[in-house]
């Protein structure tokens, strides 16, 4: 079992120790948090020194975000050609495949389409076995999609550790499992931006003062079976218990997040 560690802030290199053979760096949820070239270089120096493997994590992006990603991708392609790219946007896959077809791509959590909402736990006794099985699954194991992914440079898929468990039937793509933080929902109308000044509005892409780097919130409600964690524009839940059938699920990598990767 490969052990990887995922950080989104370069200061969190402090968490990396010899238990891990791969560093994930970047973020999935906000193009404003795409790492700077300077931080990427620090991460690259670090992994070369420690002889670790490297995975760059990229978010979904607008056209403006694509331009921000370009120099980052060029740096990785030039200096770390063995690196993996986690893709959370089909457009990012399209353009990177055209320009750097030698890179290894990984399908990120935003595109692996698991049913993460924790309220499924409240329904377990009220819905049919076929429905429960559906909620444990994902579209990535539909043969037409798996085949397409493999033909388009995707070498693995990233999975969250669902509270209801995971079900994969004859999975052809290798998978990574993220612990302990699992994303549930995300928005461009960031709930945290402007939280200090009160300038946040219900429906706007607010000015950002990187409040997400300072505060994490716990959301509790009797109808939500577990607490949600709000960091920046994304809500997560925590799940520390690993499935017992990792091999059957074709999971051969654990991605540990020491902090919520925002």
């Amino acid at each position, binding site marked *: 079992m490969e052990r990887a560690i995922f950080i989104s802030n370069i200061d969190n290199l402090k968490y990396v120790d010899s238990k891990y053979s791969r560093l994930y760096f970047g973020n999935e949820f906000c193009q404003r948090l795409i790492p700077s070239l300077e931080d990427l270089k620090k991460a690259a120096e670090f992994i070369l020194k420690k002889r670790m493997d490297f995975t760059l994590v990229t978010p*979904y992006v*607008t*056209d*403006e*975000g*694509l331009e921000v990603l370009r120099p980052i991708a060029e740096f990785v392609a030039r200096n770390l050609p063995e690196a993996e790219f986690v893709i959370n*946007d*089909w*457009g*990012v*896959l*399209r353009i990177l495949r055209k320009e750097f077809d030698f890179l290894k791509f990984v399908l990120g959590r*935003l595109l692996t*389409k698991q*049913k993460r*909402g924790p*309220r499924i736990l*409240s*329904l377990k006794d009220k*819905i*049919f076995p*076929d*429905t429960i*099985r*559906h909620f444990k*699954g*994902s*579209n*990535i*194991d*539909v043969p*037409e*999609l798996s085949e397409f992914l493999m033909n388009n440079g995707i070498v693995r898929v990233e999975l969250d550790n669902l509270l209801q468990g995971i079900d994969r039937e004859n999975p052809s793509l290798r998978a990574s499992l993220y612990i302990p933080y699992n994303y*549930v*929902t*995300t*928005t*461009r*109308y960031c*709930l945290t931006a402007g939280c*200090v000044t*009160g300038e*946040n*509005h*219900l*429906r*706007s*892409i607010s000015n950002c003062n990187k409040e997400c780097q*300072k*505060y*994490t*919130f*716990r*959301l*509790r*409600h009797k*109808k*939500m079976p577990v607490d949600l*964690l*709000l960091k920046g524009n994304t809500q997560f839940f925590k799940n520390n218990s690993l499935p017992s059938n990792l091999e059957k699920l074709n999971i051969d990598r654990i991605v540990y997040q020491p902090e919520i990767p925002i």
Partner: protein
Amino acid sequence: MKILAPINSLKDVKGVIDAGADEIFCGVLSHDWLQRYTNVASLNRREWKAANLSSFSELQKIVEIAHDNNILINLALNALYTKKQYSLIFEQIEQFISAGVDALIVADLGLLLSLKKRKIDIGIHISTGGTTFNSQTAKFYEEFGISRIILPRHLQIQEIERITKNCPGIKFEAFILNSGCKNIDGFCTFQHGVNEIIHPKAWDLPKRLNFDRHLLNIIRRLPPKLSRNIKAGVFGIDSACLLNYDVSFDVAANVGKKTSKKILNNISSNFNLLSGVDACGACRLSELKNAGIYAVKIVGRNYSTEKKIQDTRFIKTVLTHIEEHNLTRNEFMVFTRNAFRQVYKMKCAHLCYYPDGM
């Protein structure tokens, strides 16, 4: 620019067509599907039974009326599916096709690939769930021969324009009215329609009677200071994005007590019922048209026939005004807000679909 109106019943069809709809869209939750997967794993992104047709025979009658009036009908098939569901999905698709629908609205790449593999000859619209946030994603879908892309709610008009200009071969659709979800549709994994399973009797009838919309209409008439303090849970509307969460710091914040309280209040204020109030983008229609949008979608399949007709008529009035008058942006906004007040008998609440640049 075309107008798409929602329907969930045969009785909606003539009314929205007469009010100015150019196309209609709907979803079906059949008995067969509900028996295996329930409404929470709906065949489309509207998990309430009240938002969907329940039979193919009703769909067929709707298609006949629509086609008699030269109106296209698009069918939502925009959930995300797992392998075991495919045999039933394709059984349902056969029935949609034999009923005569013009296009399927699809979000799942697995389904898109399966439709192509089976060479199913029908228009395919990429749902907002396809998360087309940039031109490259639009081109990615274009390579599958799709005929339209419905853009995410969370794009700004200038971002939309950049996509449309870079992809002249694709028709783009944007949301214009109702259901302004604050989370990104294609990336949100909360279950909806949970109450319909937990409290089936107490939930379905109020939903069919549009209780939730009437409630939201009352809330939007209240002063913002008051309306922002009304939390969803107290009324039984319990979508996870609207629950009145108890908000605390997960990690102690390095700020004073007063600032700390203010921050928690500000975060808490995101989770009010007002954030579920129907958003409107009518006063940006002119800009959306100039940005290259082909069609605008009115959301709200589960709303009453009266509301659907009212919404369609409102958008038609505004679009007609654009075509007949050469107004400045400000003049157009004043016209639209007046039209809003006349149609809905209340002031525009500034709950904008496209708040950028406002």
